[in-house]
């Protein structure tokens, strides 16, 4: 009787351990997985830690850690009126870009979903241009283009032109983020339900569509904000030192007679902290759900 039970149990045991083994082979041994994860973490964290240390270092020479520490760079950078003006310009430009992109891109994108599919290829082609053309080329092109007519030539080297250029080059990420969430929200079905029950396109956008895709709008806006904050090539070639944005200021800290690389480290950490705070606010607003960027299959 005992032997019978034993032999009946043995194959089951074999099978379970066999399956576990197969899983083990696929995923690699536990230590290897842990090591891989740690490697990725170090790869991501090391530059951040180094920047943080550098922003606190007095001198740092040929040693793993700085010679000694100081808050001097933080204090001097945060009180430097030139730096504050630069970061102020960047934030203003980035916020205006977010507003402009929302006003300019959302309506046609919505329209392409509910009414006219034919404008989609046009939107997508426009969205590809900033990706295939280097920033320097676009900046040069924009400068020459506005120089063609006396009226537009007045825009040359103005912050307004810089804003327009950044809007034109940073909207694709917004377009893709919001396009995905429009699809995921099944906007066509929502539009049909709204219009059959008496609502026009504008009321539907305001009351039904925008609330349904607010996570995508937030994610898209954040990406546009980050990209506008970091825009260097356009700022350098369109306005240059006449309108010094944060990246231009940072570039100046790396070379020249008044270079201040420690201040550059401080400013990098500041903009990173700002973006992190915004992302965190969005995640909180989503009640912990990660904002959806990629389109997902519509739920049936």
């Amino acid at each position: 009787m005992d032997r019978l039970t034993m032999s009946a149990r043995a194959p089951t045991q074999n099978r379970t351990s066999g399956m576990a083994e197969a899983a083990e082979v696929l995923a690699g041994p536990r230590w290897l997985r842990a090591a891989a994860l740690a490697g990725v973490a170090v790869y991501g964290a090391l530059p951040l830690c180094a920047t943080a240390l550098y922003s606190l270092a007095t001198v740092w020479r040929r040693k793993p850690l700085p010679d000694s520490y100081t808050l001097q760079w933080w204090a001097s950078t945060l009180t430097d009126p030139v730096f504050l003006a630069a970061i102020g310009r960047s934030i203003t430009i980035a916020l205006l870009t977010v507003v402009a992109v929302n006003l300019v891109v959302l309506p046609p994108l919505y329209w392409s979903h509910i009414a006219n599919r034919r404008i989609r290829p046009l939107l997508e082609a426009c969205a590809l241009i900033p990706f295939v053309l280097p920033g320097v080329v676009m900046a040069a092109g924009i400068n020459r283009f506005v120089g063609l007519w006396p009226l537009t030539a007045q825009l040359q080297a103005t912050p307004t032109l810089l804003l327009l250029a950044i809007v034109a080059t940073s909207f694709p990420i917004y377009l893709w983020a919001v396009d995905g969430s429009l699809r995921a929200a099944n906007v066509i079905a929502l539009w049909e339900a709204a219009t059959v029950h008496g609502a026009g396109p504008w009321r539907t956008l305001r009351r039904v569509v925008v609330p349904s895709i607010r996570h995508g709008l937030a994610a898209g806006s954040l990406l546009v904000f980050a990209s506008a904050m970091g825009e260097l090539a356009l700022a350098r070639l369109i306005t240059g030192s006449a309108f010094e944005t944060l990246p231009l200021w940072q570039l100046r800290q790396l070379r020249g007679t008044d270079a201040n690389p420690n201040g550059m480290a401080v400013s990098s950490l500041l903009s990173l902290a700002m973006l992190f705070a915004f992302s965190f606010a969005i995640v909180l607003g989503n009640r912990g759900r990660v904002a959806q960027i990629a389109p997902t299959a519509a739920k049936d």
Partner: protein
Amino acid sequence: MPEVRVEHLRKTFGRTTALGNINLSVSDGELLALLGPSGCGKTTLLRCIAGLTRPDSGSVFLGSRDVTEDPSRTRDVGMVFQGYALFPTMTAAENVGFPLEARRWPRGAVAERISEMLALVGLEHIAARYPHELSGGQQQRVALARALAGKPKVLLLDEPLSALDAMTRTTLRDEIRRIQLKVGMTALYVTHDQAEALAVADRVGVMDHGRLVEVGSPADVYLRPRHRFTAGFLGGRTMLALAVGSDGRVRWGGALATSVPWPSGTPVIVAVTPEAVRLDAVSGVEGRIVLVSFRGGTTRLQIETELGEIAADVASSETERYPSGRTVRLAVAADLVQVFRADENGVDDVSDAH
């Protein structure tokens, strides 16, 4: 005065004819079901009436008004969609109030109408919940309340129950009918489920390949189909290919003999309902039972004969007598079959059997 009238409606998508010259009218307070297989054009017809799809030609009238060129939002219809299409960021009450808000009802009237509608569908207690907090059946009730809230001229239902489980489907089906009768609403109900169509409708319109094949009462289209397609689509009939004999009768061995007014040699299709097949007949044709499926009160047998498989129903109490594999002798009750000419595709080629 018919509430909904459709005249010469045509719509093609590329090379597919979704609607080929549809004429239809639904009278005041009537529920008409549009029944047909998927792709027959029934949803396209509904969407043309709703204004969501633009017909290539033809007219749509709601009451006395020609709305063919009107946008959907001014047509004054209520619609229940297949996937509910509730607004996910609004509560049940806000969803029901949406059509009223969109049509600028005064605030007090909106609140009153919302509670009236939620009471009608029995959902007062979940007014403050969001769609994702509701079951499928509750969501569909909210959708029905929303469709009726604005007091539309006509209620359009597009496969309203297809996403629900069988139990909820039956309950909700009967409830939709009760509410429609209570409100006295003119309604069009699109479905591919014949049981659903026959149960809720005053009249059933059978559609196939963009044509409205026939319209009649549920009993008419089920028991006395006038078109071969209807006969094949409803009632689980077996279609037998036979020919008119020299004596002007259609015969199937000793199992069936029925007179038709057509010349000898005319190919015909005989539509046989499962109830018309008698087993263990004295004279008849032989067949072998190949499949037995229990259906509640009756059990359906698939019997292999010289003409192919034929479906027959027996009372479930007699199932033991008909095990799979048994050979039976079967006959067909001539007064329960329809005979159609097989060489013409017309609608009126049916012969009353006798």
